[in-house]
């Protein structure tokens, strides 16, 4: 096999990626087109109606966009108090030690658990707990979904943050120690400022994960199609409405669901792109 054939084969193999991506966008756009055309693009985004009774069909994405943003934001808030300590534990306080390796393995395994099993656990363990604590009568809802989602994104946020924390040069830290700083002060004044951009970007990527998470949210969010009015109320995320209704939908409803898929795709693609660019920048610094 000569060099030319080899190059051509590799090139063809590489072409598959743009083809698939182009296909994803093409399929989403063409099949979402009906819904956008019928309701109008901005109307579709801003309408909170989701009615599929025949003759009175009316679809809007707002409840699900709200649901997705609420669950994601809450998950992020719940995740930080745990993922940041994990990152500091692994990347700074016990850097290179056995305990750090064990903890990071354990946290990585969290990322390996299939989302449907998280959903089961949330449904059979967390939901009764939330009912027992009288937080919400039905147990499922935005809050329940966010709590489980938070656990799911801890590994994504913490492992990348830990990488950046590990990269903080020793001489900077030694400089601060030599001036009499305590370890906590070194973390606060040296580690965070230096690794900050990287840590931030790892949370951006964790958000990207949370946005599209499907099964867990579907099993825990309560599946109602209105805009959630508090964190304990039920709702639907963009991914969960698709998971719930795609199988039975056709016509305009199917197109509307695909339109929601397109919006979700664009949001996650945007967030992931921002995260990747930030990581590249943070690596250079």
């Amino acid at each position: 096999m000569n060099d030319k054939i080899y190059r051509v084969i590799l090139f063809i193999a590489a072409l598959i990626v743009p083809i698939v991506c182009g296909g994803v966008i093409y399929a989403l756009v063409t099949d979402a087109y009906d819904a956008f055309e019928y309701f109008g693009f901005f109307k579709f985004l801003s309408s909170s109606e989701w009615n599929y009774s025949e003759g009175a069909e009316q679809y809007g994405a707002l409840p699900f966009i709200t649901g997705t943003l609420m669950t994601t934001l809450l998950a992020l808030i719940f995740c930080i108090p745990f993922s940041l300590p994990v990152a500091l534990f692994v990347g700074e306080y016990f850097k290179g030690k056995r305990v750090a390796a064990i903890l990071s393995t354990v946290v990585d395994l969290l990322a390996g658990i299939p989302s449907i099993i998280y959903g089961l656990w949330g449904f059979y363990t967390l939901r009764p707990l939330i009912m027992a604590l009288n937080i919400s009568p039905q147990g499922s809802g935005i809050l329940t979904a966010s709590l489980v989602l938070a656990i799911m994104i801890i590994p994504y946020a913490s492992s990348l943050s830990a990488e950046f924390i590990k990269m903080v040069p020793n001489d900077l830290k030694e400089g601060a120690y030599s001036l009499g700083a305590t370890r906590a002060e070194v973390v606060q004044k040296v580690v965070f400022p230096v690794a900050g951009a990287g840590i931030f970007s790892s949370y951006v990527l964790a958000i990207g994960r949370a946005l599209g998470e499907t099964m867990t949210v579907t099993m825990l969010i309560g599946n109602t199609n209105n805009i959630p009015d508090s964190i304990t109320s039920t709702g639907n995320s963009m991914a969960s409405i698709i998971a719930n209704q795609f199988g039975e939908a056709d016509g305009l409803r199917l197109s509307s669901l695909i339109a929601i898929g397109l919006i979700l795709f664009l949001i996650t693609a945007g967030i992931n792109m921002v995260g990747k660019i930030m990581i590249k920048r943070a690596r250079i610094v």
Partner: protein
Amino acid sequence: MIKKRLAKDKIIFWSICILAILTAVPLLAILGEVFFRGYDQLTWSFFTEPTPTAYKAMKAIEAGEPIPGGIANGIIGTILMLGMAAVVAIPMGILCGAFLAENSKNRFAQTVSYLTDLLQGTPSVIIGIITYVWVVVPMKGYSAIAGSVALCIMMMPLIIRSTEETLKILPASLKEAGLALGGNRARVMMKVQLPAAFGGIFTGVLLAISRVIGETAPLMFTALGCSLIRWSIDKPMSAVPLLIWEFFNDPNLQDLIWGASLFLLLFVLVLNITAKYIAKKWNQ
């Protein structure tokens, strides 16, 4: 003053330790719950018999007997669909990864690299939608083929990335030494670079499999599910995560949830730990 600072330092240290270790609790809680609720369901027939119909299950419940049947249809479906996906995704992923590693400065390769990230970050439910549009609609029906296409699309970016990254960290001298002996690029890749990168690529493949084996959403609109043991790939087919979803939704079949989950969880964890172990060995 100094005392106060040292006290603060201690408090921060201990809160970090406690919070970090608390993070391990969910893993243990989930493992524990799935294990204790599921282990007594893992009998021989659980692996050899297909899912019972809702009627049969109801009868058994009324009679106070354990639900008959198991998840054999799901296991076979998972193996079949994953196998078909892997047969395409592994060679394509490795070739594409090799392309990216060989041409890292080329504009087209940078675009491909960016698009690989895009694909990897795409929510699985969207992969389900587009496979439905591409495969299920033209074929006029749900099928195992559609399911494996969805899994293949999800596996590929992971394999591309691990191949690319492993090839890139190989010392450049290895490739140069191969070429210096007069080998062409293809032979140097096949005989020197890929064998040297085998550990990293294999780890990537295992992780890719463990990532997609538990995927439910993309299979819901593609393979659909089926309660029979089936080998025809143009018909709907079940998979273990799809069965868990079915059991979750069917009040009569709830007793099968935990056995199926335990099986899936053990499988995924073993794959993950093996992958980590190989990666560690290979790095030495």
